[in-house]
């Protein structure tokens, strides 16, 4: 068997999965986006009507806005926290193993269980989060004399709650960044020490540029994921509310329209918009990363 055939054979399971589970369904979704379809009766071709209706739909506009806010806030924060933890925990020290385990642990908790746990943590009256915030304050207020966040009943606070939840499921990013940091050559740090470089200089001029390719990759990946990771928290913890659409994200909008209201064509159109947005966000980031690499004279990615 020649090498080319061997490679094809090894790739075959992946290619079959990619075609059957990604490409074909994507094609079908694309077609459905132009149809009125409830999955029970035959689809009816309606051209761009679903897209026209989407942009006149208050729920969709709210979901789009919420998803963009989530991506813009949660993605950089998740990356920043994971990077901070990786830099903090890459050295051998006492209890560092336990700390690394603690950083990864929330990621391995099943999503529904994780959501239910936060539902308890965010309970406005009996939840530990607000109990903690009330510590030292009087009459149910915080120590600063303000009411604690109304995680489940105020739209802004509820969006913050979903973002806070996402900040603890960074185990995978943390592990990748930890491995990246540990793989950096020790000589460059020795050289920096000889030059009397400050910690900030070392981070800015040595660590960050060397880790940048991996950070860029993780940024792209997390942006793509951001449109779906908000689904379970919004469904389990806030149920898309507070009303009308406080934490309705695109993924929840798609789910409701497809599976609760049986508007599969409409949901498919929203899915296509979600995919286009993802591609645009990734393209923008890719462009910025390439510019960064050119600026620092690094090889093109």
């Amino acid at each position, binding site marked *: 068997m020649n090498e080319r055939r061997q490679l094809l054979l090894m790739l075959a399971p992946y290619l079959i999965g990619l075609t059957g*589970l990604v490409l*074909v*369904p*994507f094609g*079908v*979704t694309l077609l*459905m986006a132009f149809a009125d*379809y*409830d*999955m*029970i*009766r*035959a689809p009816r071709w309606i051209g761009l009507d679903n897209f026209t209706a989407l942009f006149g739909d*208050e729920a969709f506009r709210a979901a789009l806005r919420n998803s963009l806010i989530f991506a813009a806030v949660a993605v950089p924060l998740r990356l920043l926290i994971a990077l901070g933890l990786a830099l903090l925990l890459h050295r051998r020290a006492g209890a560092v193993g336990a700390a690394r385990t603690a950083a990864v642990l929330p990621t391995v908790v099943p999503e529904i269980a994780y959501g239910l746990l936060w539902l308890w943590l965010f*309970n*406005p*009256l*009996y*939840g530990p989060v607000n109990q903690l915030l009330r510590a030292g304050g*009087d*009459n*149910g*207020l915080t120590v600063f004399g303000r009411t604690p966040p*109304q995680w*489940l*009943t105020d739209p802004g606070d509820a969006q913050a709650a979903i973002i806070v939840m996402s900040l603890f499921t960074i185990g995978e990013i943390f592990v990748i960044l930890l491995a990246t940091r540990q793989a950096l050559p020790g000589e460059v740090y020795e050289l920096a020490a000889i030059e009397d470089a400050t910690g900030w200089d070392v981070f800015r001029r040595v660590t960050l540029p060397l880790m940048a390719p991996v950070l860029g990759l993780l940024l792209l990946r997390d942006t793509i994921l951001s449109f*779906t990771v908000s*689904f*379970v928290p919004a*469904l389990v913890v806030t149920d898309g*509310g*507070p*009303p*009308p659409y406080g934490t309705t994200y695109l*993924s*929840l909008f*798609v*789910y*409701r329209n*497809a*599976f*609760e*209201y*049986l508007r*599969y064509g409409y*949901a*498919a159109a929203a*899915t296509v918009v*979600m*995919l286009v947005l993802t591609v645009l966000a990734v393209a923008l980031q890719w462009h910025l990363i390439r510019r960064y690499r050119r600026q620092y004279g690094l090889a093109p990615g």
Partner: protein
Amino acid sequence: MRSLVAALAAVTLAVSACGGGTAPGGAGEGGRSVQLLVFGAPEELAAYRTLAAAYEKSAGGARVRLIEASDREDLIARLSTSIAGGAPPDVFLLNYRFYGQFAAKNAIEPVDARLGASKVVRPADLYPTVTEAFRWRGQQLCLPSNVSSLAVYYNRTLFNKYGVAEPKAGWTWNDLIATASALTRTADGAVVKGTESEAGAPRVAVYGLGVEPTIIRVAPFVWSNGGEILDNQQRPTRFTFDSPKARQALRDFIDLRIAYGVVPTDEEVEAEDDESRFANGRLAMLLSSRRVTTTFRQIKGFDWDVAPLPTYGKAAGILHSDAYCITRASRAKDAAWKFVEYAVGPEGQRILGGTGRSVPSHIAVSRSRTFLDPTKPPRNAQVFLDAIPTVRRVPTISTWPEIEDVTDGILENALYRGDPLDQVIRDIDDKTRPLFARGQNP
């Protein structure tokens, strides 16, 4: 080919929405095996398991596989995806308010012929009010499992402790406010007005009333006041809360929180839902259907009972009913019918009625000791039967689930946030008109 395309599309949407979807198991298992899709609280699911076990025992060799959804939305998602995938459950249990979207899509098998030939159950055995709710374009699509209505569950121990008269038939909306106000108390037992408290104000320990801000809770009071919630019951095009009678009932409902402070705040409801609050003795009255009875029968710490809804002069209730529907694509329709026939027949109705879960739709069983047993709470179960002649129903329009979701969100903000009444009425009208226009009627 069509089902392949549908299945692939379902996978795509499920993946894009949530990273995976679930459909109820395989197709009908042939023979006399039936898949039954239901949802409910653990106590309710236990009741369905009891029914399924009794059926298997009575019909030797028959099998019922219960598919338990977590809630109504989950049930609808499982049902639609399984129909699309060509492997639907044989029977599903769904409220009349939500079966319209499946009826409109021709996904339910009519049962007229089978019902006509049945020796176990006759149409005349069932309450006509509720069988009519499941007729779609002249065909009987589903058969009702129960015929509940809204009632006032109340904590008798609290009423006796504070010397407040128990609610009784003929009491009015004003009586409800007075009673709820008298029972809204601090931990010391002092009467307190539970409106938005400033720092240092006494904290409410017991609220007088619990009620969901939903259209199905508001509607009976509008009807009782002589108003209508819709412009046309058969072919509705809009809500009519702008009419004087409907407007007054809606305003009174919204005042429960902001003006009278007799219902918990939204924060308190999020912290502890009304059913739990009632079961924990921190709510004197709760407006709910028969559904909560199985849960409340676990209460050990106090005595409770039910009373009829208060009125504005004319008694009016709202129908709460679930029915067994056979899917058109079921591969075991005969076996499915056998089970449905048993479940709505006297034997099945006695078993489910005995669990406390529902008011039997079978007239004779509902009037028997099985349902009215005074040794099992609620003592005054007759309230549910007395309400049947005055119950009305909301329309079975295919877009009703969307209409309820939108309306309930607006009502929630109105009750807890105190949105101006004019804005509430305008928002309900503006946001639901397109949904009525898109809906299909029976």
